[in-house]
């Protein structure tokens, strides 16, 4: 029994490590900041470690960890009270600390737009569009219906298009993005 336990423990740690970069990227997406994200990941690791026995071996550890992290994120937000989000302020601080991590200007614009999404839309599009979860898995992680996730992803896409289409090209109206693409495609 104890030998089996030890083998499981090692598997647990190995799987936990394998999931960490993805889990951390999810935390950065939720919090919008590396320092807060890493604190959140640390709390998640502690919680996961303490609750190893509640993890069913052979099931999806990544989904289990994402669920813990997400619950932790929202429960901490509730405890602290919703912090007033000043996206631009947060981002200027973030970029001054790690400008090299975000590269080009259009990626900074994207980060700002992503940060402006409502939490439920942001987590939905990140889980499905970047973290590699199926709609069903994302729904299980967020504790909602599959249809809800689908509509949140769709609304998130629309909102991002609005935010990015308008940003910097408001003079040209809503079709500026398409016009620019057409212009580039024809080499003008």
């Amino acid at each position: 029994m104890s030998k089996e336990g030890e083998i499981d423990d090692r598997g647990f740690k190995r799987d936990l490590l394998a999931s960490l970069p993805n889990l951390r990227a999810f935390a950065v997406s939720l919090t919008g900041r590396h320092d807060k994200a890493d604190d959140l990941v640390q709390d998640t690791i502690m919680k996961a470690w303490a609750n190893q026995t509640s993890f069913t071996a052979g099931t999806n550890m990544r989904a289990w960890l994402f669920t813990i992290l997400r619950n932790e994120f929202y429960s901490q937000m509730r405890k602290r009270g919703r912090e007033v989000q000043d996206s631009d302020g947060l981002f200027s601080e973030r970029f001054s600390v790690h400008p090299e991590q975000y590269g080009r200007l259009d990626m900074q614009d994207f980060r700002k737009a992503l940060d402006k999404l409502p939490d439920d839309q942001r987590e939905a599009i990140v889980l499905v569009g970047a973290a590699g979860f199926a709609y069903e898995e994302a729904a299980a992680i967020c504790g909602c219906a599959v249809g809800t996730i689908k509509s949140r992803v769709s609304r998130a896409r629309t909102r991002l298009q609005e935010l990015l289409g308008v940003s910097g090209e408001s003079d040209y109206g809503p079709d500026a993005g398409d016009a620019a693409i057409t212009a580039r495609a024809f080499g003008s």
Partner: protein
Amino acid sequence: MQPNASISRKLREFYDAVQDEGIPDRFMELLERLDQAEKNAKSVDVK
């Protein structure tokens, strides 16, 4: 179609950039400490 594809690509680009940063030392150290604490507790049990 085009704007959607561009948004999906940017989202993955951002996400992958964070993933590619790898695992910060603080987490490796934390797991090491957790592992060690568990081993110590077990060896006490055996004695």
